[in-house]
């Protein structure tokens, strides 16, 4: 029996000031899958993630998370859906005014009526999962880059969400810490059966964790497939991303002149 997909995006278009950032993206993520969204800078992958998180409204198209179209949800329903979503932002986005433990407890405080002690225990359990036990009383400013990211993961999973999103998990980390984070992502999926979407441009980490990869380029999806399918893909843009070869597109002399003269 075919399960309903955890995430389903249909013909998503995003436009800023007359420019198309996403030109009709469609994508489906199965429950329990790890999907990696790859693309260079300017490919629209950050914009795509902001759409998936419901932070911005699209120009057209639909985004279904767990069967509900978030482009049409009322505030109350979206609030309820937020309980089943966790996000680890690129820079961690921990609240600087709070301790690590307070940061992790915040979603519990917001969405549950548990007593203080229970919330503390639950938050500490998640800090154990990300290997940050004993650091709960520090403030984010006292943590290293890798610890901040792990604390952000703890906060993202404290409500045991069904959907987990990572924005550039390995950005700014050394290779060892970055590999640890990849391990953590795999562990989380195995232990909690979450559906995980990772946005990154790190090939190595993408190949290690992905069930499937999606290549985004200039607002379009080039291809979606497993690691082997991606390696075998003949598309030159995909191959240039894989082999890190610089691209030399065709030069259109007229367009080039027009750009230079500004006419």
């Amino acid at each position, binding site marked *: 029996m075919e399960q309903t997909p955890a995430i389903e995006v249909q013909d998503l278009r995003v436009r800023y000031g007359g420019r198309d950032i996403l030109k009709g993206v469609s994508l489906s993520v199965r429950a329990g899958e790890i999907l990696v969204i790859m693309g260079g800078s300017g490919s629209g992958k950050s914009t795509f993630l902001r759409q998936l*998180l419901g932070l911005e409204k699209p120009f057209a198209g639909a985004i279904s998370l767990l069967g509900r179209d978030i482009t049409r949800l009322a505030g109350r329903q979206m609030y309820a859906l937020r*309980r089943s*979503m966790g996000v680890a*932002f690129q820079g961690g*986005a921990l*609240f600087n005014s709070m301790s690590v433990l307070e940061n992790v407890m*915040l*979603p519990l405080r*917001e969405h549950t009526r548990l007593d203080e002690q229970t919330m503390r225990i639950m938050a500490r359990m998640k800090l154990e999962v990300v290997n940050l036990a004993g650091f709960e009383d520090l403030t984010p400013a006292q943590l290293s880059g890798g610890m901040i990211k792990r604390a952000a993961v703890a906060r993202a999973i404290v409500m045991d969400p069904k959907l987990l999103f990572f924005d550039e998990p390995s950005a700014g980390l050394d290779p060892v810490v970055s590999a640890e984070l990849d391990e953590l992502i795999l562990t989380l999926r195995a232990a909690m059966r979450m559906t995980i979407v990772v946005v990154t441009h790190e090939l190595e980490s993408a190949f290690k964790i992905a069930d499937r990869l999606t290549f985004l380029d200039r607002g379009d999806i080039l291809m979606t497939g497993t690691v082997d399918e991606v390696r075998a893909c003949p598309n030159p843009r995909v191959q240039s991303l894989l082999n890190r070869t610089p691209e030399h597109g065709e030069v259109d002399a007229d367009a080039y002149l027009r750009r230079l003269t500004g006419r």
Partner: protein
Amino acid sequence: MAELRAAEAVETLGRRTVQGVEELGYHGALLGESLYWILWGWRIGQPVRMNHIVKEMVSVGLNALPIIAVLSLTVGAMLAIQGIHTLQTFGAQGKVVLGIALSVTREFAPLIVAILVAGRSGSAFAARIGTMVISQEIDALRVIGINPVRYLVAPALLAMIVMLPAVTFFSDLLGLLGGGLYSAPLLGIGLDVFWQRTLEALSVEDVLQGLAKSGVFSVLITLIGVANGFSVRGGAEGVGRSTTRAVVISIAAILIADMLFTYFMNR
């Protein structure tokens, strides 16, 4: 060529006007949304939390008291010096008590407090929210399901509405004291007599008018601070720019509002 330049100037003017109206609308929307959360939040299970309000009250009000005290005493004394100097010309130094009493309560205390709090707290609102925008903390709040206006703006607004008039009253007392300390010895009267004459000169309405003004200022400072914070773009430099902008616009808004308020209240 000249025509082209004129057309450009008109276009710039038009664009600025639209921006200005947009910004005004944004402030109004922020105020409306904050009031919605303050009044309705607890009914839909997303309350404005008391501990946040108290924390803001301490930082905008209590922590400002020492510097407010110093400034109020100074301004009171300054008014006494100027008042006596001017009134001497008419041989009417005795009237300085009335002058100090009215100008402190109706004008100077609300203004001094508002300008100081705009510099201390208005800028802090802009800087804090701006930094949170840059570091994606605002996005993090939203994905957790916490409305940033409810979490950051509503507590600040409530705290300001309560604390600014309270601090202004405190400033009234110290301003009058400052005036008394300078002028009582010169007039050959005791502080107690000065105080008694001050009370005779003042009506409840004078004090209330000053406090009502500071209520208006509190809303202006908060909205301008947070609106500039939310519109931060472009990293640390952007935060600096918005913070400065928040203070400058707040002070301008305070002075203009003061003039309008005074005009309509005293017709």
